[in-house]
Structure formats: C-alpha cells, structure tokens
C-alpha cells in the first residue's frame, strides 16, 4: 500500500489552495450575501485550468486523473462551497456526460469551450416531482421527422442559466420499454433554442453564489442528432455520471470540513475566555481532535474511491460511501465549528456561518444520504428496496 500522493498532486494542491485563499476567500462572503454568480472568479478559475481536468488534451482538457480533479475541488471547497459547486457541476455533470457518451462530432463541438471555461454546460435530471425517484421523470421528447420535440421542466439545475451557459444535457422520456417502464434518453439542448427557457432560482439557503436554475421546455425542437449516446440509455448514463459526481460532492464535504477545522483551530487558539485561549479547554480541544480524526478517515475513503476509478476498478459502492461519509463529516465539523465560535459563529462576518449553511446541500444533492444508504445496502447484498 502506498499512501503518498504524487509530486504533481502536491503541486496541484498547493497551487489551488493558494489560488483559493487569494482569489476566492476575499470575495466569498460578499458574493454569498448578494447571491451573485461571479464572472470574474469564474474566469480566474478557468484560467487556472479547473474545467476539463480529467478530459484528454485532444478536446482541450488537462488530461489529469480523477484524483487531481477531486483534490482541486476539495481545495476550492476549503474556502467556499459555491465556487466548488460551479467546478464540481461543470466538470462532473456538464463536461462528464458529453465526454463519456458524446459522439466525436458532439465532443469536438462542445468540449473545447467547456474545458477552457468560456462556457458552462448543465445536467438536467431532477424535476419538481422526480427527485430521488429520478426514473419517474415526466419530461418527454417525441421524435417528429428529424427533430426531437421536448416538453416538461427541470429544477435545481446547477450552471443552467448563467450568461455563459451554453446548454444542458436533459433526461427525457422518449417512449416505453417492452417491460412497460419508461424509455429514458439524454438529449442536448443549447441555450437560446426556441421553446427552451432557463431561469435563475433565488432565495437559496446555501451555495448562494453558484447558479441554480429551473429549465422549461415548451415544444422545444432540437435536431435528432442531439441525442447523447444511444436511445434508451439515459438512465444508465445518469447513474454512471452520478457515481463520478458523488466523488466531487465527497470532495466538497471533505474540503468544507477541512476549512471548518482550519478556521476553528485558529480561532480557538486566539479567542480567550477565563483568561486563556479556549483551545486550552479540553471540551473544545477534543472537538478539534474529533474533527481532525474524522477528516482523515474521510480523506482516505474518498481518495481510495478515486484510486479505484483511476485504476478502472468498480467504485460505485465506494463512491456512495465516500459521498455519504464526507457529507456527514462536514455536517459534524460545521456544527463543532459554529459551536466553538460561539455567538460570533452565528454572524455572517465569520465564514463558519456560511459553511454551516452550505453544508446542508451535501446531504441532499446528487442523491440524498438516504439514497446513498440504499445504494450501499444493495451493494452489500441487503434486500433493500
């Protein structure tokens, strides 16, 4: 067993950490307060190369392994969840399906601009009445001559309605299978297509400076060739995409937890009560020790799952475990962080307040913690429905 990261992974971590500290941390609080997606930090993240990390150079990507992508996401999440969300959704959900299932023509058409970060692509899965029950999507696509005609809507879609959003991969019902269940297929829809509207969602509790959208399709017509991969493969594509996506949500939990710990150790060593730093009280120091221990376990679990993926071994169970565990570790770390910050932890002036809110998404997005437990239970042979 070799637990040492490669030199390139270390250089990547140092560089992204330094970038996040200098370029994102100073603006994160204001962007969160104003619920603003920043095109400035987006451009800087793009310039650093944070989009298309695992895509081969041929399509404009960086040609790095999945672990590199996860470390980069972790380091951005260490200072801000919203920016990490833009990267995680951009890579795993936007770029991922196009890269893995797209035709050569589709890849050449879309990937270079997505990998350079000039444009963003979204992933339309969740619907108002199809969340955990994603297979029960109601959005339909009917083939009419050489065009798909799409009707329906999607909700909570990251990166769908920025000024640079170029389109979405939309999961639609394209018919019925022989067993009577819906046939699901993924179809590419470019922003600006008549009948397609992407609308920004406001008043979020968390990830307030990331872009979240509702997508509406009213007799929206796209060419037949916009089908992604094979007809009827939509659900498998979505499930595979989510396996990878779970690793990036895990990275957000891990990075967020680490950010909570780093801020809280500093605070506990500086803040004095009863004439001495509050870190000297075991009640606080033990919380910090628990946080560090859980973070270490989370990191090992997440990196192992990445290692499996990078080595082309099955990783679906491990990805679900890592997503579940990293999310819950961040939940506990954010809770301890606010507790140790006391009254100040409840104020927006302190970043832990934002981390406490941002954390909650991780238990819900890309498969709730309950769904992860179902996935894990089935993998270990439990007869879980």
């Amino acid at each position, binding site marked *: 067993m070799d637990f040492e990261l490669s*030199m*390139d992974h*270390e250089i*990547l971590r140092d*560089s992204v950490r330094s970038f996040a500290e200098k370029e994102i941390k100073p603006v994160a609080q204001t962007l969160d307060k104003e619920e603003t997606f920043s095109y400035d930090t987006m451009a800087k993240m793009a310039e650093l*190369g944070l989009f298309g*990390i695992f895509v081969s*150079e041929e399509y404009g990507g*960086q040609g*790095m392994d999945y672990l590199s992508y996860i470390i980069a996401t972790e380091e951005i999440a260490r200072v801000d969840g919203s920016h990490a969300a833009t990267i995680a959704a951009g890579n795993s959900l936007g770029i991922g399906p196009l890269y893995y299932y797209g035709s050569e023509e589709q890849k050449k058409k879309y990937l270079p601009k997505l990998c350079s970060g000039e444009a963003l692509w979204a992933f339309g899965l969740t619907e108002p009445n199809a969340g955990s029950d994603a297979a029960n999507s109601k959005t339909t696509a009917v083939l009419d001559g050489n065009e798909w005609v799409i009707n329906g809507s999607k909700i909570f879609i990251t990166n769908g309605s920025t000024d640079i959003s170029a389109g979405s991969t939309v999961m639609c019902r394209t018919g019925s299978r022989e067993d009577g269940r819906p046939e699901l297929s993924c179809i590419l829809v470019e922003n600006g297509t008549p009948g397609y509207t992407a609308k920004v969602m406001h008043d979020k509790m968390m990830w307030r400076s990331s872009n979240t959208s509702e997508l509406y399709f009213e007799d929206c017509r796209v060419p037949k060739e916009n089908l992604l991969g094979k007809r009827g493969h939509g659900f498998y594509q979505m499930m595979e995409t989510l396996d990878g996506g779970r690793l990036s949500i895990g990275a957000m939990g891990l990075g967020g937890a680490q950010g909570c710990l780093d801020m809280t150790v500093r605070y506990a060593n500086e803040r004095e009560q009863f004439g001495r730093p509050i870190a000297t009280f075991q009640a606080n120091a033990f919380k910090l020790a628990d946080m560090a221990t859980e973070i270490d376990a989370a990191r090992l679990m997440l990196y192992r799952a990445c290692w499996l993926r990078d080595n082309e071994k099955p990783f679906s169970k491990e990805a679900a475990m890592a997503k579940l565990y990293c999310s819950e570790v961040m939940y506990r770390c954010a809770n301890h962080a606010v507790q140790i910050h006391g009254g100040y932890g409840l104020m927006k002036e302190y970043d832990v307040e934002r981390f406490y809110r941002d954390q909650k998404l991780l238990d819900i997005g890309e498969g709730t913690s309950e769904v992860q437990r179902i996935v894990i239970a089935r993998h270990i042979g439990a007869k879980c429905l």
Partner: protein
Amino acid sequence: MLPGPGARKEKNVDIVVLLKQVPATESLIQVADDGVSIKTEELKWVINPYDEFAVEEALRIREAQGGSVTVLSVGTDKAVEAIRTALAMGADTGVLVNDPAALGKGALATARVLAAAVKQIPFDLVIAGQRAVDADQFQVGPAVAEYLRIPNVSMVIKTELLDGSIRCHRTIEGGTVVVESPLPMLFTTQRGLNEPRYASLPGIMKAKKKPLETKTLADFGLDAGALEGPTARIRALSPPAERGGGRIIEGESAAEKAAALVKALHEEAKVI
C-alpha cells in the same frame, strides 16, 4: 568562462533563476534534539517567496523578449518539487545540484556552487531572491555575482529591459533609486516587484515533459575540498520567548492614564 554575445540570439534573453526551497512561513518551527537545528520531518516545503518573484520576473521578461528561463537550485531530492513548481509556472529547464558535499557549508559555499553551475548555462541575466526566508542571510545573490564577476543590483522592485542593458528600480531608505547595468548582470528581488502567477493545471502537465537535470560538484570540476566549511557555526538555537500578556493601565482620566503609562515605561520598562 562567461558567454560572449555570440552565444545567444539577438534580443532573446536567457535567464537563470536561483531558487531555494524553504519551510513554508506558516510552518510550526521546532528546535531539534541536537539543539542546533530545526525539526524538518513534518515541515511543509515551498519555494522561497522572494525566489517566486524571481521566477515570475524571469517569465515576464521572456514573454516580452523571447529567450529562456532556467531554474537552478542546490538541495536534496525534495527540492525537485520546488523546481517542478517553477517549471509548472512556465520556466523551461530545471537544474538541481544534489550533492551532500555541497550542503550545509554556508552561504558563500552555496554561492560558489551556484556560480559554477551558472557558468555552464548560456545567460544574460541571473535573478535571485534578496534573501531566503529561512536563514535570512542576504548573501547568496550578491556572492554569486561576485564569483561570476558581473554587476549586482539588490532589492529590485521594477525592471526595464533596454538594448544590451537593464534598468532596475531598487528600494533604498525612504525612496527608490534607478540604476542601469549592462548585461550580463544579476539582480535580487524585493516585495512589490510583481505578483507571482499560480502553477496552472495545464502548466503542471507540461512540466512533466520539461528537462530537469541533476548534477553533482564533479560536473563543475569542483571537489568537496574546494568548498570551505561554514564560516559561522550555530552554537545553540532557541525559539523567541513567548510574549507575555498585556497590561491595561488604570486611571480616572486620559491624563492620569498617560502619566501612569509614562511612569511605567520609564521606571519599569526603562525604555524612555
């Protein structure tokens, strides 16, 4: 020994950056059991911040003029990471002098090794940090210039490349002074010179394919005996005394508090 004008192309500027890997400034520094060195096992190592300015300035000059940037360091295997980081930022070539005989002999010995290594690389310009933030000696850059017998300008905050010379703005007490020097020359960096770029992800991938040579003293015709030992020896190392708690001066009015403060500064602290 020095490269003549014929050794380089017109206008292109070949630059050597002297780089040292140092403990990260936020590291927790602890004295080792021997009492004369620090514990290094758990330290995080980074490029000396002043050397990062040097790498950045070299890249900017190369981008404007054409030419090449070679990063040169004396260190152990772990210094490879610092050189690779500079290559990921955009430097072209790395050279690591990794020889036990070259280590731990002090600033002047390091400067001799670096000068010998620089002589093997065609150069117009050598850029170094004004000092390394670990030992804070301010010696290596100017000493390398002396060994190379080229001009040295220290603490530079702005450069302008002219035809065959360079204009450097350097800080002095209370102001800046502008000096011009013919090439080849060496200058050292001061904070404010530039804002170093991040090693980008594509840069990290490109760095994998860039040449990074490892050399020993024998490659420069130097033998260990030629390097004198350190000119100073560390007898004892101790962390600075911990800061005591503050004291709040009591008093009814501002005037009363001021009087009490003056009394304390004069009689107890004996500073006024």
